């Protein structure tokens, strides 16, 4: 069966978002008139347009072979994991420790399997980020756990 999965999924999701935005705007915000548009007017119209475009994208994708895609799961997890850990840990662990941990997490995705370079990299980036952001730009972040 021929399907263009990326376009099909993308179209359906966009149509869904459009529909939701439109209905939510109509339901929650005042629409007003053309002369005095309320806060809901613009999003309601845009949502409708997006829903239509989503359908236009999805329909032909039903009967067409799509390109094969390769999802970079490992890269995705490592990168997002690093950011999430950084975001959650910055206040509690302090800049130095959290940078070290996040760089190590991010480096998991690299194609080089060895360990040594990761540690060197983590220490370098930590030194750099402390130097630039904490000492250089004087950003108000805790440097170490428990200040």
């Amino acid at each position, binding site marked *: 069966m021929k399907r263009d999965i*990326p*376009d099909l*999924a*993308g179209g359906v999701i*966009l149509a869904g*978002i*459009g529909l939701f*935005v439109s209905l*939510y*705007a109509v339901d929650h*915000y*005042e629409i007003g008139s*053309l*002369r*005095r*548009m*309320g*806060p809901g007017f*613009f*999003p309601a119209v*845009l949502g409708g*347009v*997006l829903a239509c*475009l*989503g359908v*236009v*994208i999805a329909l*032909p994708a039903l009967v067409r072979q799509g390109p094969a*895609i390769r999802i*970079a799961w490992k*890269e*995705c997890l490592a*990168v*997002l994991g*690093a*950011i*999430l850990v*950084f*975001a*959650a840990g*910055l*206040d509690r662990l302090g800049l130095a420790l959290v*940078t070290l941990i*996040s*760089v190590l997490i*991010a*480096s998991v995705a*690299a*194609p*080089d399997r060895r360990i040594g*370079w990761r540690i060197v*990299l*983590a220490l370098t*980036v930590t030194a*750099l*980020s402390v130097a630039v*952001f904490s000492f250089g*730009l004087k*950003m108000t*972040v805790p440097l170490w756990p428990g200040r």
Partner: protein
Amino acid sequence: MSGWDGFLHGLSVATQPGVLIYCAFGVVLGTFVGVLPGIGAMATISLLLPITYYLSPEAALVMLAGVYYGSQYGGAVASILLRLPGTPQSAVTTLDGYPLAQQGRAGVALFTSMISSFSGSMIGIFVLIVLSGALARAAIAFGAAEYAAMMILGLVAASTVGAKDPAKSLAMVVLGLILGCVGTDVNSGVQRFTFGQTELMDGINLVALAMGLFGVAEVIANIHAAERTGVPPRVALRELLPSRAELRRIPFPALRGASLGSFFGALPGTGSTISSFLAYAAERRISRHPDRFGKGAIEGVAGPEAANNAAAISAFVPTLALGIPGDPIMALMLGALVIHGVQPGPLMLEARPDMFWGLIASFGIGNLLLLILNLPLIGIWVSMLRIPFRWLYPAILIFVCLGVYSVRGSSFDMFAVALIGLVGYALSLARFNPALLLLGFVLGPLIETNLRRALLIARGDPMVFLQRPLAAAFMIAAAGLIVMSLVQVIRRRMRA
């Protein structure tokens, strides 16, 4: 202030040490990221946005612009040496630059691209000076209807001209417009789509959006791809000099490319990437030996490289003169201006002459710096290609996090960046263009305000967009573009 007086005044602003040093930093960093495949001007400018909070508005904009046109110089290096475009704008340079490198003429190809880039930029600056002043003066007469119509034309042009699938591009623009609605509605004070999150009251953070879509998403996509670069050949300084016969083949293609580039760069929707492809096609068409193209024709490097640089400069015409960005990078520039409390548009020329002319003059200085620095430093840039991406991307990620956090000290924004990065990666997987989303996001509030104002003045009569001649012309052009791309799509389906 006339154009030349203005430019001279601008020179006095741009040569202040506090501005000059950021200009130099911007162009060097721009060349660096242009050289490296895997990180582009878009990502770098988003990364630098939070840092500009610490700078004067002039220094900030001069630096960000320097990154943009600097990356155009660097982009050619990887194109020529590795057949890997460092930036999309230099993709077409691979066609003849790489064959030249294989014939052992890499130095000549690099020299050609540098010198053509420089002449393209100079012509672009000339066009910018002539056009932007005149346009800004003309635009003072623009009403809300003209502005709204012009922005709609800009968005339609950006998503249809040269797009493979206009429906997908338009959908991105519309999604961007919707995201632009999030936050407090300026007219009524109503909180739209904030879902009770106080962090969303000021809208989605531009820095977080740009960093997520370009920084994070590009890192995810490139960890594997950017690792497979070959080993670039060494280029010695004296290999740069072309023979006399080769030298003669540079000026006219460069001039033609620059003219094409400055024209299409100033139009909304057709940026430097399209210009470089058009310049290549033009060179091949008028050449007496079209068969040489693709096998190492100097003209095939000179034309496109001049075109993309000229277009990068003339793209500032609508951004500065009208406050309407023609492409996503200009949207980021506009965002940076607004962050610094500068309202771009026709009034900027009068209200902030230092900013306006200083920025334009800095283009001249920056390009001169690029020429002076890059020719002797070419060996260093080439060796940059040997840095594996795995040494860079973890640092980029930390930079993204701290950059976003520094804007207002909010962890919420860092979580948002992770989410936006995931969305951006999904979009690029499914071949949706996230750059158009950003363009819509920046223009959204401007369009809505002008649309509402225009209709209020016209007492709710939508015909106002067809009764005012200029607005009508913009609307008709936008409609024409949509019809044209519809016809194209239908024709392609019929053939398939």
